[in-house]
């Protein structure tokens, strides 16, 4: 009997961290050992796949027997043998390890365009991509389509820049095509710096060829012959897989001279960033490729006119490029209909924080925040209450519970005081302090400010000092007003996007969670019990069993007491690390 068996092991950064490599190696070992080809004369192989998005359940493993797919969750190397013997050899799935309905719910409500092949194909093998129709769009664009034709399709599809600003991609390409120059560049911005965002990483790791294919199509449409993919230093796996993908393309003549046998040539290189958030800004990114400090410049020209080395340059985000091959193959109408009137298609979000199902989520634009967090994300972790959702990273804002029905698109999120941004979506629960959150983001932008313009360099520093004062119990009357005044000035007068949006996390939390600021300033109290200087830990004598767990974990030796009698915390010595609070099984430690 001939059986076709494929085993797919999730090997994105999340999968690898949870032990994906060991799991895959074990499957491969079992296949070789069992001499399966001879035994049941079936075709069996195990392969790695990129991130399928559901990182909280890693390592995920698919066992596909004659096209029937079964998914397992939380697989460890020592579980492989049983799956192999019972399922692969004898055909009976191991029921207790199945991913179950939660896995299906997570995926059923999504519409996968960009992520359609992530988690399905082997990202290190170009043939795996070609087998699902890969490079057909590029071939069509290069061999059969005129540049104007490609530009028109992208314009009609209503695709907007997925990096966050939402500039219509077709218009950018049209300008790139119109400007005449002997040298033009196409750049892919893979400097995904927003903390809490990992869509681009997953695409570069899980489906690197889709990005390259999108860039080839863009190169043809704008008539440019060289390109760069700028990847952050923090994504070594993405760099490795893109590098492999480029080499494979060169061998197949999909990149290089006279690609696909045409008279069009396109040369593509990777440039690895060196760790600077501001390099996600287009002009700063181009200075970085030139080997300089990545400082933004005033936008006197569009990049499409004067960009890298002062040559016309079209720069798009990873996700934007990954959409392009699908639009060329399925048509502009198909893509436009997926989204709202003003923005076509889907958007990938990285859902993380205090939500049950963390991972990547691809949804049509126009879906509500509630649907993403509750229907796909499965609600709040540990039965806690929802407090806010932070979108758009350090440039975005916090959206409170009363606005959960806000539609997700560029304009609605901006009206709610946040931004769509690159797609980070961090869920905050009742145990999150909003002043601390605002301080966290400002610490980030202040450290990453390049220092070129004064409002950003000095303004964010002063705002941060005020927030530090408030969270350490030294807040004064008038601090809130001062924060607002400074924030508005920085927004109005900064040179680049980093400064213009730096105050957003503070301004949006001030708008929706002003009472928390007031509690910190007037009552010297942190309602969520997070800010270290404002909380104390005390042992409730009636509940303490004297087990000594807290004493053992205390790094400051601040807990006194003998076994089986109530313990006590020495407030002078306590460093408020919270270890005792976590260690106590009897909830005898009070944190206020």
């Amino acid at each position, binding site marked *: 009997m001939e059986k076709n068996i494929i085993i797919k092991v999730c090997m994105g*950064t*999340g999968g*690898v*961290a*949870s032990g994906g490599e060991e799991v895959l190696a074990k499957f491969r070992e079992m296949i070789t050992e069992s001499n399966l080809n001879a035994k049941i004369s079936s075709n069996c192989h195990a392969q790695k796949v990129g991130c399928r998005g*559901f*990182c*909280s359940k*890693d390592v995920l493993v698919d066992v596909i027997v004659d096209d029937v797919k079964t998914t397992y969750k939380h697989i460890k190397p020592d579980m492989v043998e049983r799956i192999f013997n019972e399922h692969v050899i004898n055909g009976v799935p191991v029921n207790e390890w199945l991913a179950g309905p939660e896995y299906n719910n997570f995926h059923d409500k999504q519409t996968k365009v960009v992520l359609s092949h992530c988690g399905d194909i082997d990202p290190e093998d170009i043939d795996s991509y070609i087998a699902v129709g890969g490079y057909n769009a590029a071939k069509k664009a290069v061999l059969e389509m005129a540049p104007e034709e490609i530009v028109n399709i992208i314009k009609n599809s209503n695709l907007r820049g997925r990096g966050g600003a939402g500039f219509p991609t077709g218009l950018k390409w049209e300008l790139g095509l119109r400007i005449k120059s002997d040298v033009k560049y196409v750049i892919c911005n893979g400097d*995904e*710096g*927003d*903390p*809490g*965002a*990992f869509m681009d*990483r*997953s695409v570069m790791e899980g489906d690197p060829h889709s990005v390259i294919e999108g860039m080839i199509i863009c190169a043809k449409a704008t008539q440019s012959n060289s390109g760069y993919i700028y990847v952050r*230093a*923090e*994504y*070594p796996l993405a760099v490795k897989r893109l590098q492999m993908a480029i080499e494979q393309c060169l061998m197949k003549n999909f990149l290089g001279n006279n690609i696909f046998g045409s008279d069009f040539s396109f040369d593509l290189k990777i440039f*690895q*960033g*060196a*760790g*600077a*958030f501001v390099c996600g800004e287009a002009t700063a990114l181009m200075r*970085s490729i*030139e*080997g*300089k*400090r*990545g400082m933004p410049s005033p936008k006197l020209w569009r990049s499409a006119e004067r960009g890298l080395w002062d040559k016309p340059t079209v720069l798009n985000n990873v996700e934007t490029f990954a959409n392009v091959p699908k639009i060329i193959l399925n048509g502009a109408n198909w893509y436009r209909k997926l989204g709202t009137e003003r923005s076509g298609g889907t958007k990938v979000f*990285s859902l*993380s*924080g*205090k939500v049950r199902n*963390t*991972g*990547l989520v691809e949804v049509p634009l126009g879906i509500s925040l509630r649907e993403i967090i509750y229907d796909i994300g499965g609600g709040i972790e540990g039965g806690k209450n929802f407090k806010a959702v*932070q979108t758009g*990273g350090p440039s975005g804002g916090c959206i409170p519970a009363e606005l959960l029905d806000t539609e997700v698109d560029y304009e609605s999120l901006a009206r709610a005081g946040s931004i769509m941004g690159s797609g*980070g979506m*961090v869920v*905050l629960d009742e145990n*999150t302090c909003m002043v601390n*959150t605002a301080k*966290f*983001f400002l610490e*980030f932008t202040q450290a*990453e400010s*390049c220092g070129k313009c004064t409002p950003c360099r000095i303004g964010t520093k002063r705002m941060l000092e005020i927030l530090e004062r408030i969270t350490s119990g030294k807040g004064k009357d008038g601090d809130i007003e001062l924060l607002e005044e400074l924030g508005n000035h920085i927004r109005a007068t900064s040179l680049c996007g980093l400064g213009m949006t730096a105050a957003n996390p503070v301004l949006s939390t001030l708008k929706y969670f002003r009472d928390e600021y007031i509690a910190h300033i007037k009552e010297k109290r942190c309602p969520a019990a997070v800010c270290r200087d404002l909380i104390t830990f005390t042992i409730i004598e009636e509940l303490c069993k004297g087990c000594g767990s807290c004493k053992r*974990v205390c*790094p400051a030796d601040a807990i006194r007491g003998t076994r089986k009698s109530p313990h006590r915390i020495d407030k002078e010595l306590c*460093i408020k*690390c*919270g*270890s005792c609070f*976590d260690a106590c099984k009897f909830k005898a430690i009070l944190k206020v």
Partner: protein
Amino acid sequence: MEETLKKILKTYHENSGNIITILQDIEKNFGHIPEEAVNWFAKKLDIPASRFYGVATFYSQFHLKPRGKNIITVCRGTACHVKGSERLINRLCLELDIPEGEETTSDLKFTVEKVNCIGACGIAPVTLINNTVHGRMTIDKLIKEIKKIKSE
């Protein structure tokens, strides 16, 4: 040292590199950017050393001081922050006796660093121990890992 620098210079010429790629190669080979290396290149390429310094201090990937043998990187992304990464750093510095404002232990055995976000938010809080990603980190797990390294 000179041999290594010559090799880096060769790849610089072959791949039409720039200051950033040179510094990346120096960092890869020496673990930090030694002053001598910069001066050597400044002379060879006739580029002022100040330009190297300007670039090296701009990007967080470059380190001017020698770093520890073992590098523990704590992710400070938003998801990791709300799941308690700040506590991990505080405890690490306490455990390894690293003074405030410093990153490396005096015996050069450990360096504790922060990274903005490594994009593994689904398994927050995340820590890299000598470049291996560890998800869902707790203080207990971290202390165990440190003990393991110390005893090696």
